[in-house]
């Protein structure tokens, strides 16, 4: 049943990625089709980083994408590798790589969020002082 758990996670992550990636593409890359301004400018990107909901969104997208992709890669590699012990080693390596990438990506998102929030506060203070 262990594999059923992983497989179910893989399927659910795939379904969730459809929505998350769909939202990401529509909001960020093809928003101009709906008459809104380009969403990939640095200031707008930093504006998104400052919002906690986008922090959660980015981390969810990262985690689900990594899990879905690396589990799929593990399945493909286990087809090519005939030695059972080598399969286990590959699975461990991919798990470690996935955790490290997730940790690094999450940390980057937090730093971006922190910087963007700090910058937003500074801009607000300057506006108050000038205004």
């Amino acid at each position, binding site marked *: *049943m262990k*594999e059923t758990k992983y*497989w*179910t996670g893989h*399927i659910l992550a795939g379904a969730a990625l459809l929505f998350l990636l769909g939202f990401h593409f529509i909001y960020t890359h093809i928003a101009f089709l709906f008459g809104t301004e380009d969403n990939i400018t640095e200031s707008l990107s930093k504006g998104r980083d400052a919002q906690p909901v986008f922090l959660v969104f980015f981390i969810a997208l990262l985690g689900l994408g990594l899990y879905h992709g690396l589990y799929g890669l593990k*399945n493909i590699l*286990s087809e090519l590798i*005939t030695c059972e012990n080598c399969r286990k080693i590959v699975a461990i390596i991919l798990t470690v790589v996935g955790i490290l990438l997730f940790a690094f990506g999450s940390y980057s998102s937090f730093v971006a969020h922190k910087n963007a929030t700090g910058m937003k506060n500074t801009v607000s203070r300057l506006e108050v002082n000038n205004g």
Partner: protein
Amino acid sequence: MAETKTIKFHIRRYDPKKDKEPYFKTYDVPFQPGMVVLDALHYIRENYDPSLAWRYSCRMGVCGSCGMLINGSPTLACNTQVATLGGTEITIAPLPNFDIVKDLVPELSKMFEKHVAVSPFIVRDEKELDDEKGEYYQTEHQLEQYLQLTYCIRCGCCMAACPTLATDPDYLGPMPLSQAHRYNVDTRDGGRKTRNEKTGSSHGAFKCHFAGECSRVCPKGADPAKAIQHMKRQLVFDFLHLIKNQKPCEKQHGPGNEPKKDVPPAPPYTV
């Protein structure tokens, strides 16, 4: 008088006691209308080499003993007409994905161990099975869910055609998995949860990536590939607790089989 057509049979020979590696040997066999590959093998043994080994029994596609690789496709020797193969050269080898006992005889015991591991029988309470209070009535639709899988003769052709089994010998394979599914979808059965432990393991149904070769080569026309995909869905639904009716059907009196009155009790067992 017309000359008799001769067919060249290239047969892979291997005796683990004598040979280091398998090798091919060619035999000329006179063609006769209606001749099947099994007839040609008999001809070779009777006229050229009595040491040629293969397994067969019923000679009519029922027992599943004579599965072998004929012109690169796993099939039954007794069911394959030489005329339908075309050409004047035919290559015969033992089923791949199995160890070889000798010549064309594959070692099937591992396949049957996997088969036994998935409990290929109706799991019920023994007392209830013996109870004469009724019968397990099934509708035609319920029967159709598993009927084609009951045609399986365990010949091993699907196992030989499976590309996943070629790289992972521990993979359960199409025959045991489809037979597990045959009982999982049987409304009389109550053993699905137990089977899920085996079929949902790392060498179970999720290893299948739907190449579909097993269904293509099945000499009985069963569709193990489809059964495995259904099994995957059932495993996920079971894991997420999305299947409501978990209990197997109970004994009842089906239409036209109402309980008869004044039926004398069965005589006691004599053995």
